[in-house]
Every structure is written in C-alpha cells, then in structure tokens.
C-alpha cells in the first residue's frame, strides 16, 4: 500500500510539473502580453518606449531564466504578483478559493444526491414510462448550458418570485441558485453511470439467487446492487471535478461571485500570466488529489481489489 501511494504521489508531482510547463509555454506563445494590454490604455498616454521599459522592469531576463525563476517561485509557494492588479497572486487565490470551495462542494453534494435519486427511483420503479422519463433526465441535464440555467433561475426565482436575492442577502441565500446551476450538469454523468451500473449488476446471476432467498426488492437494490454499481460511479465522480472548475467560471460570472472561476475569467481577459499559471497549477493539484483519493478509496470499497494488490 505504501509503495502504491508513493508511486501515485510521484506521478502526481510529474503531472503537476507537466501542467505547469505546458501552460507556461502556451501562455508565452499567446500574442501580446498583460503589460501591453494594461499599459496601452490610451488614457495613460504611454509611449511604446515607456511600455518597453515597464516590461523590462518585470522581466526576468532570458526565457529559460524566466521559466526557472517562475518554477522555483511556485515550488517555494511564491506565485508572484498579478500584473493586472499588482496584488500578490497568493492573496487573490486566498480570497477566491474559499468562495469556490463552498460553491463546488455544495454543488457536488447536490449533484450526487440528484444522481442517486434519479438512478435509484428509475431502477426501483416498475412503471416503464416513469423509468424512461427519469433515465432521459441526465441527457437533458447535460445539454443545459450553465449560463442559460443560471439566468433562467435568476429570472424566475429572484426577479419574478422574489424568493432569493442575487444582490445582497446572506451567504446561504447567495449560494442556493449558483449551487443548483452548477450541480445540474454535473449530476448528469454520475446519474447515467450509476443507472447503467445498477442495470448491469441486476443482470448478474447472484441477484436472482438473493431474490430466491426472499430478500425484498429494496434490500437487493440497496444492499447488493448499489454497492457493486458504485465503483465506476466513483471514478466518474472524480473526473467530474474538472467540470466543477469549468462550470464555476460560468456560474461565478453570471452570479457575480468572487471565486476562482471569475478570477480565471478576469485573468484570461487581462492575459494576467502569473494568475493564470497559479490557477492552472491549483486546478491540476486539486484534480490530481481528488483522483488520488478515489484510487485510495477503491480497495476500501471493494475488498477484491485489496486482495489483488
């Protein structure tokens, strides 16, 4: 087990380095740079020479030197300064991260709940139209664009029915609509995989055996089928983390929330390289971590895997 963990951790570090380097190179290849974008503002009346001076002031010399300097900064936790706002990147991440963490964790919990309800009710139901209807919900959910859903929810629940404010209001009130917006598309793949997993397990020969022994339908589903169906679902749930980050960019912009997603959007607009790099590495780190946790959970949930390792 220790060796397994060490290998996985080593791979994780490699993935992080690759993510850093790839995004670093890509950002360097983009036309223009944040300094040009920021200082060409004609209001400031700077000449190209002055802009070049400012760039020289920020730059770290040769491209390789610059890369190594940035990399060593990241390794020691110094993400540099946002060129757009002049504040330390760490400070900006520190402000944005808790907001997104709250949003994403609540959305993930809701997504899992939605998925479980859909898959279970569909599997348990004997009414074929209800089953068909429920199983088509994930395809609907995954096709709903987050920005459209967000605006729809705001229009109906905030502006028309006035149930929750989008401006002001408590933290909990502010969370409701964005959480739903983010949860709906994410619940879709989880529900789909869970429902299919349940179907597959039902087809296995041990199920009729248990039924013949007198187990109730609910007992079979909950105790035997679901437990076996949960493994592929777990993998998908780990992968949907990426969706959470992508979805938060849109959701936070629509709802004007100040999280990682909105920070990303602003950093991209301003081509704020230090912030973008930090966001990419952070997202990669969390992604790697979540998938590591999933891998570690596997043997816990499935004793057969423990025996194999």
């Amino acid at each position, binding site marked *: 087990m220790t060796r397994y963990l060490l290998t996985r951790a080593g791979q994780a570090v490699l993935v992080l380095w690759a993510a850093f380097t790839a995004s670093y190179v890509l950002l360097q290849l983009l036309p223009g740079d944040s300094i*040009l974008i920021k200082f060409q503002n*004609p*209001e400031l009346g700077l000449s190209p020479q002055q802009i070049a001076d400012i760039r020289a002031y920020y730059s770290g010399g040769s491209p390789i030197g610059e890369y190594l300097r940035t990399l060593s900064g990241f390794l020691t936790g110094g993400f540099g300064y946002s060129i757009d706002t002049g504040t330390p990147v760490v400070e*900006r991440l520190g*402000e944005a991260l808790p907001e997104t963490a709250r949003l994403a964790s609540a959305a993930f919990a809701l997504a899992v709940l939605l998925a479980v309800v859909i898959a279970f009710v569909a599997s348990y139901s004997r009414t074929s139209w209800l089953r068909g209807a429920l199983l088509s919900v994930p395809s609907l959910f995954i096709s709903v664009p987050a920005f*459209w859903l967000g605006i*729809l929810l705001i229009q*109906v629940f905030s502006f028309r029915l006035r149930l929750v404010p989008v401006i002001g209001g408590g933290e909990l009130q502010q969370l409701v609509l964005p959480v739903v917006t983010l949860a709906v598309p994410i619940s879709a793949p989880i529900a789909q995989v869970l429902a299919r997993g349940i179907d597959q397990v039902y087809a296995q020969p041990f199920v009729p055996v248990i039924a013949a022994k007198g187990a109730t339908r609910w007992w079979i589903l909950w105790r035997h089928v679901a437990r076996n169906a949960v493994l592929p679902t777990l993998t998908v749930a780990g992968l949907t983390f990426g969706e959470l980050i992508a979805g938060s960019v849109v959701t936070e*912009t629509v709802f004007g929330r100040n999280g990682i997603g909105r920070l990303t959007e*602003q950093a991209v607009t301003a081509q704020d390289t230090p912030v973008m790099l930090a966001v990419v590495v952070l997202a990669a780190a969390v992604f790697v971590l979540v998938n590591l946790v999933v891998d570690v959970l596997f043997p816990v949930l499935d004793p057969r895997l423990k025996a194999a390792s």
Partner: protein
Amino acid sequence: MSSSNLRTAAVMLAVVGLLGACGGQGGAAGAAPSSDQPVYGGTLTYLEHQPPTCLYLPAAGFYPNGGILNQITDKLTWQNPQTLEIEPWIATKWEVNKDATEYTFHLRQGVTFSDGSPLDAAAVAANFDVYGLGNTELKLPVAEFVNNYERSEVVDPLTVKFHFKKPSPGFLQGTSVIGAGLVSKKTISLPYEQQCQLKNIVGSGPFTLKNQIVDKEVDLAARKDYDWAPPSSKHQGRAYLDEIKIIVTPEDNVRVGALTSGQADFVRYVQAYDEKTVKDAGFQIYAEPTRGVNNGLYLRPSNSILKDLDVRKALQAGTDVKEVVDTLFTASYPRATSVLSHLAQGYVDLSKDLAYDPVKAGELLDKAGWTKGADGVREKDGVKLRLGVFVAGPQPLSKQTLELVGQQWAKLGVQLEIRPADAGTQAVDIKDAEKTAVAHSMVGRADQDVIKSHFHSQNRDVILSKDKKLDTLLEEESAEPDNAERNAKVAEIQRYVIDQGYAIPLFEEPQVYGGAPYVKGVAFEAVARPWFYSAWKTQQ
C-alpha cells in the same frame, strides 16, 4: 464565456421567463416619492458592469474607476456640466496669464484629506508634478489632460502656481476632470502598483473607502466632516447617503433585473435593447452625453488600401448611419453630425458632408480602380478590397454595429473582416494598419483638446496618422489661448478630418444608467460619471 452568448440566452429566456410571470410585478416601482426634501441616511446599491482596474488617478477615465474615484476625490475646479464653465471648488479663484503659460490657484482653507493631512498648496503641487511630468522612478505615467507642463511653485500654504513650457489653454479644464482628483501627499508619492490599489487612495471627497472585496464590491461611507462641496452646489456639508455599495455585476440582464425587482437602486450600462424594460417598470433611464469625439469608424490612411482618399470617401458615403442608429440603438444615442458631439466645444454641424450616398460611393470606388469580382468583392491588381476591424469591447453593441456596417459595405463590394476582441491579439494588431484598417472607437472629455487626444500621433493616434498637417492643426488648437480662436481651430479640424475621409461618425455615445424612482439627486460630471454627493433615497 462571451457576453453575447449570454445575451442570446436572455432572448431565449424572454419566452421561458413567462413561466414566472405570475410572481408579482415591479413592487419597488410603486413607491412614489412623497416630497422633494432630501433625506439623510440610507445605503445606495449601485451595480457596476465591470470591476475597477488600476485606480491611479490619471487612469480614472475607465468608467468603473471613475465611478469610485468621483466619490472619494475632489478637484481644484468644477466644470458645470450644463454650461461647461469652469467654476471654483477646492480652488476659490485663479489667475491665468495672457498666453496661458502660468496658472495661479488660491485654495480653500481648512480642507483635509480623509487621513487628516491638509489639502494645501504643497499637496496640490505634488499631485500636478506627477500628473504633468510623470515619475520614472515610481513608474507613474504622465496624465493625458496636462500638456506642456514645466513645474509647480508653492507661493504660500494656500497658493500654488504652475508654469508651462508652451501655452496650455486646456489646463484649467484639465484641473476639473476626473483624472485630476486630488490625493494626499502620501498617496501621490507611492509607486504605481501601490497607487493602483483602492485602499491606498486617500482623497478629500465626500465619501471614503469603508470596505473592499477586490473585483466584487466596494463599500463607501459618507465622510461626516465633509464641508467643501463646489460653492455653486445648493447642497453643502456631508453627503445625504450614509453608504454606497458598488457591486460588480457583469451580466447585463442580471443588472437590469436586479434594478427592476428592487434589489438594486442604480445601475450602469443599460443596453439599448433593455431601456424599454427599465422604463416600462417605472424606472428612470439616465442617458448622459460624453461630449467628446463621437462613436464612429476611423479609417486609417496608413493602410495600403485606405491610403487612397477616394476609397475613404467612398466608405464614408456608403455607410448608412441612420440605419445603424435606428436598427440597433434608441433615442439615447443621437446620430452624429460631425466628428464631435454637438455638445462639445467648437462643434460644427457637418451633416451635409456626411449624407448617405451609395451611388457616389460606387462611383468613387470605380474611379479608384476597384472593380467587382465574381464573388461580389472588389479587386485591384489581384488584391481584394478587404479591411480588418476589431470589435471594440468598451463600445456598446460594437459587434452588431460592425456587422450591420459590414452588410452595407458588402453591397458596395467591400469586405469588412470583423475580429472578436481578444485582448492579447488586439493589443498587438491594433497598432498595425494593415491588419486593422478601421478602428471603432470614441473618447469623451469636455474640452477642445479631446480631438487632439483622439487623432494626434503622439496621443491615442486612433487612425495611426502620418498626416503632418493634421498633427500641426491639433497642436495649434492645443496651444491657442483665446477660446474663440480655439473653437475656430476645432471647427477647421473637424472639416479637415471629414474631408480627408478619416472618420465615419456614427452616434454621440452616451453612458446609460438606470435608476429607481425613489433615488433622487444623482448628478453626473461633464463626461457622464455619476456623482452621488447629493443623491438621496425617498425610502430607506
């Protein structure tokens, strides 16, 4: 996520949104104001379209920056937005020598910055030394509104004198603009990166910073001891409101919906197609003029196709401006009749020279040797008549405007290549006349110098001008101490720009705000940034 996608979504919503229509109607609109007597207290919730960027004062022209800085700083002088006259504010009086190279300001006594330090001659001198000369060591750039600055001189604690290398008649107005807000000596001596941050900006204005969540919210609180409003203001003493909450709400229909559902009191940037929604809900639209160079398409003579005057004149004659304004905009966007707004100083009506004439346009293109190819696009020596333009992020409905103009030009056999505004590519290509033959832009400022800001090769240089004559005319305007002479020069420049086909003026760009009916007394500076000093709410 582009906002145009979101907008498309909003249209789809118009249908689906009816679902919730039973949930009640504009309740906030129902409360009629009971009296015109201002009330103290209350919080104004103001929704901004974008977060503020760098708050170094000369960069205050960006509206989200100006909306904050206009509340927390005062200026030496006050430009009356109605008459455009310069009136006293922190300076009680001033003298200008005959050739406008020396300005002496006498300051009001007892004015303090919010950190308690005095707003005296030394502080004013320190401010303008930076705005006029910049500071290389602190990375502080020169401000656009100060020309030919030489030095300051503190005559006595309440008298400050400015010396100029050459006549600088625009300077008096320059002391009233948003970017000339006065900050404490401590603030002005900070390096650029520090002055960019709101928490470091210490002004003497009626409001002070109470709390800031970067990129999300700015809370301003009234300064209780404020007692130096412009003398011409009826309202003196502290601001009526206790607090202003400025909340960044990027989504257009969220801002408008929040306003009409009573969740916000005031919003900036109401799109033309949302104006009706706001009005129908009983709310008020404030379309404030920006009094400068009009929103328009600026043709770059340094481009290899547009270097031909006939081609430029053809595009000018072949653009149906009326159709653009009537189709996409509202009465808040008056059709342009010159390069300058009709409210700008020195404006002349050139609408006769700007008449739509597609036949003439076609003839001019024929004359210039551009003949239609099989695909309907004109060609000359194997080169297609294709011109590039960037969607201008800050201009309202820029993409739609360009698309409509593109359709009109297509009929003439001219292809307009519209590129989306990706900041990086734009920053590089906008300075390349071959790639960006046409610029869609405008600039607001209530002084004759605005036309110089827009066209001079050392300023914004929108047309990437290599036209020495234009530069000379603009310099003469900028250095002319006599106001009537200066206006005459501005008129000459407008005629020249139109005659040379450098501009296709579209409309006089306003800043459009929406306000709740119970919000009173919101004023605007001459270039449409809100001033909440005298604002109050009839209901708390």
